[in-house]
């Protein structure tokens, strides 16, 4: 069950969507969505509110069924996986990580081993080792005995990411994990996510901060009006034209002078400009 992630899997097809259509009741959220995602990349999922970013992550996790179309995870339709089998291949760090019960950080991280440990079985040496390594990697090892409800937002988010790392999945889905964090913790969490991609995983992250997205992602998917409107490297997706059309924002965009990423300066919302 140990995932040996190396460079030879880089680019291997992890997720395939074909003519995907989904929605809630009569309302269609996603229409005719087709794309493929490969290993070893950090892919940002961007778009205005209600564009279907969270819906897409839910569909991938099998928490919601598409109206039509197909979702394949590692070559197999997602619906044919047992829950635990899917959880050994793909996991999700959800948006809301408020936990009202007093589990220790280590308890929470150890939950990531759940799909690897049989019913009535105790975790083995490898399980315990993975929990320790995941906590070390995310820098929460010194918090192992702290109740999770006493942690700050950034610490809690790192603990949940440690759980996902301990789960040893090849695919990592992140649902706006930096939403409630200050700048320093945003950077830390995204650097962690980026490292997972460098280690050979596929990281698919729904994000709101376009500047951060341009800096940390290898590829961006722009969802708007029910479909995929742009797909490519950050500088190709984050154009002044796309921001105007799909985010309804007048903005100036310039490349960073040092290192990767884009300067994005929003000037005015289009609706304000029109009035």
């Amino acid at each position, binding site marked *: 069950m140990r995932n040996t992630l190396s460079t030879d899997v880089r680019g291997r097809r992890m997720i395939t969507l074909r003519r995907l259509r989904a929605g809630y009741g009569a309302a269609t959220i996603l229409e005719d969505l087709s794309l493929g995602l490969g290993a070893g990349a950090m892919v940002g999922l961007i778009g205005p509110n209600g564009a279907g970013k969270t819906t897409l992550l839910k569909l991938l*996790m*099998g*928490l919601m069924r598409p109206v039509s179309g197909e979702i394949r995870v590692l070559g197999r339709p997602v619906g044919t996986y*047992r*829950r*635990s*089998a*899917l*959880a*050994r291949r793909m*996991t*999700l*760090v*959800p948006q*809301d*990580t408020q*936990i*009202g*019960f*007093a*589990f220790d950080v*280590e*308890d*929470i991280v*150890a*939950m*990531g*081993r*759940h*799909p690897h*440990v049989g*019913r*009535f079985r*105790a*975790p083995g040496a490898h*399980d*315990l080792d993975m929990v320790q390594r995941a906590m070390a990697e995310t820098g929460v090892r010194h918090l192992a*005995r702290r109740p999770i409800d006493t942690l700050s937002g950034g610490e809690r988010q790192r603990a*949940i990411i440690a*759980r*996902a790392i301990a*789960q040893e999945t090849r695919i990592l889905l992140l649902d706006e994990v930096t939403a409630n964090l200050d700048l320093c913790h945003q950077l830390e969490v995204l650097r962690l996510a980026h490292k997972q991609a460098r280690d050979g995983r596929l990281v698919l992250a729904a994000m709101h901060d376009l500047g951060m997205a341009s800096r940390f992602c290898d590829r961006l998917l722009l969802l708007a009006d029910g479909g995929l409107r742009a797909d490519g490297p950050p500088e190709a997706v984050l154009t002044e034209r796309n921001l105007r059309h799909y985010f309804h924002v007048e903005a100036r965009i310039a490349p960073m002078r040092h290192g990767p990423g884009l300067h994005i300066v929003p000037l005015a919302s289009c609706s304000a400009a029109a009035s």
Partner: protein
Amino acid sequence: MHRLHELARRRLALVVVFAAALLMAAASAALLVGPAAIGPGDLWAMVARRAAWLLERGTPGSAHAEAAGLGWQETILWQVRLPRVLTGAAVGAALAVSGAVLQGLFRNPLASPSVLGVSSGASLGAVLAIFFGLSASLVWALPLFAFAGAILTLLLVYTIATHQGRTPIATLLLAGIAVGAFNAAMSSFILALALERWEVAKTIIFWTMGGLDGRTWDHVLLIAPVLLAGMAVVLGYTRELDALLVGEVSAAAVGVDVARTRMILLLGTALLTGAAVAVAGGIGFVGLVVPHIVRLLVGPHHRALLPLAALVGALAVIAADLLLRGLLAEHNIPLGVATAAMGAPFFLFLLVRQQERFARA
């Protein structure tokens, strides 16, 4: 999964030993207290003799006791008090475990075995059995009717709350409250009809208030297998329950089949609750309060919480029954009244304490 660290492990061991010792003490006291004067000597004699029989020829029976010309003390111990204590222990364990599982499943500290209408369904079944005179002629009729009432109620509530293969937890709770209210109304309706025949009405009233009077080995035999099977099922899902406490999406992300887990655990708690109500009537507040006490002692991990809730639940019911028989024997007060009368103030105490903690934080 949760590897308890050394301190937590030691604390847990201490709590378990302490609870087990208290349970043994309460059970022994319950065997010795009653209208007939029976001393510890009689108890030891019985235990020794039964143990010897067990070693010699397998199962001891009451026929052996009579054939051997044993004293009335042993007959009372074996035929009256032991089944009463064992039934009480099993009922307390079943209710406390049900409550602990439901509180985890619903992520709601106010959940209890009555939350899905299951216990009122069991009550309705029992009331019907008494009303139609079945329980007077057949000792198994009342428990079986109560059991059927519990299971039918759960199936009804689940079917109502399920839409296109999904069963939202909020709908489940609302459906449970509505069906529970209907069950209670039907029980009252039947009681009103029964008032013309005072003996039947009295039986119904006393049964609804819950108690362990006149419980026999039949009752022990009814609840014991259900308790063992139910415990085995819920103990297989302790990690899932932990994960569900964190949240449904998180649980799904770590591989918990949320819908399936929920259905299996609801069925398990319905069996436990149904069996408890079937043999002892309405014993209130044990299922609500005991899990809270245990959670305060050992934390939220279900692997520790569930077995300890069983121990403490058994202890609570035996102790309450003992208190009534020892101190208020001449008044014939129903057990359910005592557990509710002690449980409700204790629950309020927990509530106030929690508020104070939040106010400080």
